[in-house]
């Protein structure tokens, strides 16, 4: 009885979109600006233009990238997750405690912390959805809780000497010549790919966008709003835990003060990548560039090496400002055209 089954011939398909779809403009702007920034660094500093420097962006920001992928979904759904940094810390702490103090097998520990992160996220999602609480509050309390739990395990840092962890930590995958990437970087790229797929080609991903566009409408359209909302936070929790695992490889230690303030970096990366904080619009792929953007700003400053502590901050702020301003200008220009 549906209208789709009808005898009339299909109309000739309209010509497929010519040129670039308008909705990809912010993404394009971000990528272009990143390339410009990289070019600037290469001109200014010797040794900047090398494969390894760019791969280091990935190696050094792998965990941030993974977390930001999960956060992209949360932000697209119109929420926010402030607990990501704390969950990373908790993951490193639990991993270190179990592996070092209780000699658990690393693989068991990794699966366990991934489940833990997912459950942690899902619980927050449940509270947000079921009791109509503000995501900011719930995840902020989640952040306090996760960090607090770290200190309950130990206030000191715990080194990891386990063979598996050190092996993974030091493993390098050659890309070309003597440029290499770490396991974490590969996982991060895989997560970006997986995130992009989930966002654009699955029911779950599309529902997240619909909720971000208008939660009430999404509900009236008969979309599974409740389970998707819980799922979004669970996914973000999972990504944080996975980020935590990668972070553990990166640091080889568990510590309650790990990844302090990482949530802000992650939010910044997501937003710079073209996602609207008000929800409904965003790209996982853009998030990757948001992360790289933050990374390259930092690298530029490190290569400069002459800034005092405070000028470092002012420079980071300035570059961020420049970038966001150009991003806005280009977007407006495109829209006006």
């Amino acid at each position, binding site marked *: 009885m549906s209208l789709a089954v009808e005898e009339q011939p299909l109309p000739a398909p309209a010509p497929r979109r010519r040129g670039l779809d308008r909705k990809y403009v912010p993404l394009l702007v971000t990528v272009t600006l990143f390339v410009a920034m990289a070019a600037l660094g290469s001109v200014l500093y010797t*040794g900047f233009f*090398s494969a*390894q*420097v760019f791969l*280091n962006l990935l*190696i*050094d920001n792998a*965990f941030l990238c993974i977390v930001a992928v999960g956060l992209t979904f949360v932000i697209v759904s119109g929420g926010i997750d402030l607990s990501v940094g704390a969950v990373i810390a908790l993951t490193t702490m639990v991993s270190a405690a179990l592996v070092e103090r209780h000699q658990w097998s690393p693989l068991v520990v990794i699966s366990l912390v991934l489940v833990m992160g997912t459950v942690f996220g899902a619980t927050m999602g449940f509270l947000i959805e079921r009791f109509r609480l503000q995501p900011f509050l719930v995840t902020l309390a989640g952040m306090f809780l996760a960090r607090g739990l*770290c*200190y309950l395990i130990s*206030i*000191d*840092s*715990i*080194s*990891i*000497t386990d063979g598996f962890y*050190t092996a993974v*930590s*030091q493993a390098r995958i050659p890309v070309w010549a003597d440029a290499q990437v770490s396991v974490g970087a590969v996982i991060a790229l895989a997560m970006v790919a997986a995130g992009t797929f989930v966002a654009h080609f699955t029911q779950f991903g599309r529902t997240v966008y619909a909720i971000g566009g208008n939660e009430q409408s999404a509900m009236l359209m008969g979309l599974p709003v409740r389970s998707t909302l819980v799922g979004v936070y669970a996914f973000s929790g999972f990504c944080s835990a996975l980020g935590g695992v990668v*972070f553990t490889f*990166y*640091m*080889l*230690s568990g*510590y*309650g*003060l*790990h*990844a*302090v*303030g990482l949530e802000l970096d992650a939010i910044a990366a997501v937003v710079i990548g073209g996602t609207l904080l008000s929800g409904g619009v965003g790209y996982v792929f853009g998030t990757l560039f948001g992360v790289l953007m933050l990374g390259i700003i*930092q*690298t530029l*400053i*490190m*290569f400069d*090496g*002459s*800034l*005092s*502590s*405070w000028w*470092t*901050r002012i420079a980071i702020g300035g570059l961020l400002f420049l970038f966001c301003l150009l991003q806005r200008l280009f977007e407006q220009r495109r829209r006006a055209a």
Partner: protein
Amino acid sequence: QQKKIVLGFSQIGAESEWRTANTESIKQAAKDAGIELKFSDAQQKQENQIKAIRSFIAQKVDVIAFSPVVESGWGTVLREAKAAKIPVILTDRAVNEKDDSLWVTFMGSDFLEEGRKAGRWVVDNIKGGEVNIVELQGTVGSAPAIDRKKGFEEVIKGKPQFKIVRSQTGDFTRAKGKEVMQAFLKADPKKINVLYAHNDDMAIGAIQAIEEAGLKPGQDIKIVSIDAVKGAFEAMMAGKLNVTVECSPLLGPQLMKAVQDVVAGKPVPKRIVTEETIFPMESAAKVFPTRKY
């Protein structure tokens, strides 16, 4: 003239006067020694320090030096440095790695010992029966906070008359130190004999709180702290702080000498200890004019 030596130095951050003095000393010494310094501020984050070290490796500096924000988790990046044949010098704090070939030398202070010195002063100088001590800790989980607490406790252990009655974090800041002390004073107004603060800033904040509560800091409540920054000397001259344990930030010249030796291939000792003293109230006026930070 030979090529300038390039030193990559990764600082923890600029969280305190002490740290700023430390940075200044290193910058000045590098300039004096004609060493090109690549300075990077990690804003208290270990991951930023690791990134900085990676970027030093990519920039092919001659020597890398850094003050580890924590002891653990440096193995991977230090191995990368070793593979790139860049010698590493640790300042201020050691790292927790079994393979000590990863760095050539470690110079700097010993937080544990600082805590012990503060403890010893208390044990030696505070007489009378019950001694109730309150402690203002540094940032929870930070290495100086952990070790200064540990060192202090080590000394007073087994001396039952010394008791830590309250201990709370003041995040190494004056504002928090004052706030926490205020609450302590209201909670047990009469019972506090000694305040042990993990740094001078918290002690200075607490002194204000004690005065506002109508007590005399330095007399009614004896105060011990660590760092020996300028403000502490002013407080001591005013008779409000009893003693501060020095933890010298002026590592610059020593570090530059070590860098030059390493590059020249001269042997350097694995551990270079910096001089640390303890300044009681009485010496303050004499020492104050010579303090640089």
